[in-house]
């Protein structure tokens, strides 16, 4: 313990004394599990929860869960925006909680010795999850590593709803200008130009930071994906390729640079943060942008209409190059969302923990996770769990998503299975209902192009992340330069050459091997 504390300090010193980064996140100190102690759970705190609660311990469903399973939990939350840093520092310090909710490289965590393998524990102590895995071999395939190991108690999406975001457009402006919803890139250009000229807005197409704070925000990726490539590795005719070095990427940059010059895209795209992004939407400076159906539109539309009752946001199909083409990339989630709970090596009561987590896969736990407490947050109407006014018209003025987040865990990844009946009621606005249908129309195509939930060996994973770390930084920087014109498009070949120098071929090879192993499972 003392030694590890030193190691933590040592790392910080070694990393040129990055003071202040390790603050918080070590609340578990001095607490040793000996069977009766609470189970400490590390999870990032969803922003919809943090509006009303300080910790997930206060969520009604968690309290009910503790009662039903007889366990005690103690949630630890990293500071918002510093999740990655704090997670890495926590791993490096080896002071682990009992359970970590993560989304990422499970095999590496296991090979590093941070988490344990769960196969036997699931066989013996998680009958509900085991049943699901036995009945859905496809899910089991996704969840298992190449050697058959299972490292996470998963968050599953077995129902219809697997696409959660897409591009939305100001329908009221389209109507006013007598335009149709754009389908192809050319039509998009016409529409954006009309927005620019007739409405005089600064960001006809807004993109950039959220939800991942990268310059290549999802909206930009959607337009890139119209060219049939994406901004990272994907499957092209079953083979792994790296999108940015494909010739289509150059065509995309060419177009985006033109759009930038003509003022069709947000000039501040590289510096946007959530605040400025929201502000541009709510100030009616944005004509079209990417957002999520639930958390995004559920928030923007009511707020917009408060100031401008005519404002309307409607979903637009993912753009394509030529009329009649089908979009391939739709952001469809796999059945296993990739998120899950891991049991760390510090956990002194893994059986009890797995048993408790398995509760969410049983009938009772499933209802608790998705609907909360019967009589309080939902009532059964003809066998259909219907949310009460506490959720749909919250007396404290909370929005639907906020009220849900206060009582149960349906809107963000957690252990258990998402229920379609939750999504059906979650999307209250017509625009949201249209969106979910529109965005999932081509979602099966996505299975052909996206990399399945593969697992890499430690060596592969280290090598891959090292290569991709350099490439990603370089790609993002060069993307900006090409778009704003700081780098002429003629230098695209140099860009490709540099990425090759970073050894992108090896990265692709690693992915290909893993995909082959996945297919052979």
């Amino acid at each position, binding site marked *: 313990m003392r030694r590890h504390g030193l190691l933590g300090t040592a790392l910080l010193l070694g990393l*040129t004394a990055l003071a202040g980064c390790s603050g918080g996140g070590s609340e578990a100190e001095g607490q040793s599990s000996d069977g009766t102690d609470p189970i400490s759970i590390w999870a990032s705190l969803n922003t919809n929860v943090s509006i009303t609660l300080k910790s997930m311990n206060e969520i009604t469903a968690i309290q009910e869960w503790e009662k039903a399973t007889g366990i005690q939990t103690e949630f630890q939350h990293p500071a918002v925006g510093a999740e*990655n840093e704090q997670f890495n520092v926590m791993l490096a310090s*080896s002071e682990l909680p009992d359970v970590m909710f993560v989304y990422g490289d499970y095999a590496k965590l296991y090979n590093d010795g*941070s988490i344990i393998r769960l196969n036997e524990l699931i066989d013996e102590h998680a009958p509900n999850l085991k049943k699901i895995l036995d009945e859905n071999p496809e899910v089991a395939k996704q969840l298992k590593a190449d050697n058959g190991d299972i490292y996470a108690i998963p968050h599953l999406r077995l129902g219809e709803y697997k696409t959660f975001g897409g591009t939305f457009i100001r329908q009221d402006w389209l109507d006013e200008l007598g335009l149709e919803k754009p389908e192809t890139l050319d039509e998009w250009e016409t529409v954006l130009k009309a927005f620019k000229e007739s409405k005089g807005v600064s960001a006809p197409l807004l993109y950039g930071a959220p939800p991942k704070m990268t310059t290549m925000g999802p909206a930009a990726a959607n337009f890139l994906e119209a060219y049939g490539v994406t901004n990272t590795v994907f499957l092209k005719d079953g083979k792994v390729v790296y999108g940015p070095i494909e010739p289509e990427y150059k065509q995309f940059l060419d177009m985006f640079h033109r759009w930038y010059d003509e003022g069709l895209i947000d000039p*501040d795209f590289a*510096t946007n943060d959530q605040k400025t992004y929201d502000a541009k939407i709510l100030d009616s400076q944005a004509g079209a942008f990417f957002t999520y159906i639930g958390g995004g539109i559920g928030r923007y539309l009511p707020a917009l209409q408060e100031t401008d009752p005519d404002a309307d946001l409607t979903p637009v199909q993912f753009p394509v190059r030529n009329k009649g083409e089908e979009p391939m990339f739709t952001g469809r989630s796999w059945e296993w969302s990739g998120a899950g709970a891991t049991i760390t090596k510090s956990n002194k009561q893994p059986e009890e923990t797995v048993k408790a987590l398995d509760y969410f896969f049983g009938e009772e736990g499933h209802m608790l996770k998705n609907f909360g407490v019967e009589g309080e947050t939902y009532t059964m109407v003809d066998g259909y769990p219907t949310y009460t006014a506490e959720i749909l018209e919250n007396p404290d003025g909370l929005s639907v998503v906020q009220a849900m987040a206060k009582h149960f865990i349906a809107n963000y990844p957690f252990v258990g299975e998402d229920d379609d009946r939750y999504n059906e009621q979650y999307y209250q606005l017509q625009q949201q209902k249209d969106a979910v249908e529109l965005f999932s129309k081509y979602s099966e195509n996505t299975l052909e192009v996206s990399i399945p939930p593969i697992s890499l060996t430690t060596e592969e994973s280290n090598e891959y992340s090292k290569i991709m770390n350099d490439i990603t930084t370089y790609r993002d920087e060069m993307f900006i330069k090409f778009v704003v014109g700081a780098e002429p498009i003629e230098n695209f070949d140099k860009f490709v050459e540099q990425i090759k*120098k970073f050894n992108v071929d090896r990265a692709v090879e690693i992915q290909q091997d893993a995909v082959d192993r996945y297919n052979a499972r």
Partner: protein
Amino acid sequence: MSGDSRKFRGTQQALGAPRRLSGSSTGTESANWFARLWLNYKKNKAIYWMVLPVVLYFLVFKYLPMYGAIIAFKDYTVGKGIWGSEWVGFQHFRDFFESYYFWRILKNTLVLSFYQLLFGFPAPILLALLLNELRHEMFKRTVQTVSYIPHFISIVVICGMVVDFSARGGLFNSIITFFGGTDSSLLSDPSNFRTLYTASSIWQELGFSTIIYLAALSGINPELYDASRVDGASRLRQVWHITLPGILPMIMILLILRIGGLMEIGFEKIILLYNPNVYDTADVISTFVYRKGISEGAEFSYTTAVGLFQSVVNFILLLGANRLSKVLSDNKLF
């Protein structure tokens, strides 16, 4: 290191030992040393106990953690721990020197530091000299107070202000457009970053840094001024021949300290100000280490090596500056 042995001799002197010119030490000599230490301890118990917490502080928080720096020479994985991980020698250093970003972050680090030194170092001296010439006490104190208040504002707030001011439609842009310029996002342009960074640093630290010079100024014997006035020296002459030489030792010591930290650009401020647009001029060693080591990737060994490289360069610079100062002004830190 020569610095260490010198320090060692310094301790001996402080303990009342005769000064030795050669650093050779034999068994009996060190036994003597301990015996003398013990005697001295008996004599000055209270002082030794008083210094103990400080020594412990440095041992525990400054020296022990250095043990972790060995992961720079290993392929550190969390599971295997510091000792269990494999040795890879200078692999991580080689990787860094051959990295695409090596020259860029090294150059940015040096250039930003150099700007800080070039513009940031003389600024408080000038202000101190100006304040020193003021005869109206009230006015002097007001200026002083106003100028050092920014020092007490959190760096996060300062950077928030700079970001807001330089955004489209912000204060800086309002001024620029007033004089006929165009409204643009100043912090997205790599060519502005160094100016904004250096200028805001000077603005924030200017007043506070003058305090130490003003203290040095007040130590100058006023009779020197009187004498020079009798000799008919002008104000400027007085500054040149009395004031500046009077505070020169202070200037040199602060300069040595500054040079020692030349590579140590404050990463908080850059992280708060930069964005991928301006990595070209803004990305420095410490921000690179932060991104690769903690926030984006978890390449602990590699980034420790990079951090260590920076510390070594710093150390060399510090020794160099100390030597230089000794040659130039016979002032030195150690």
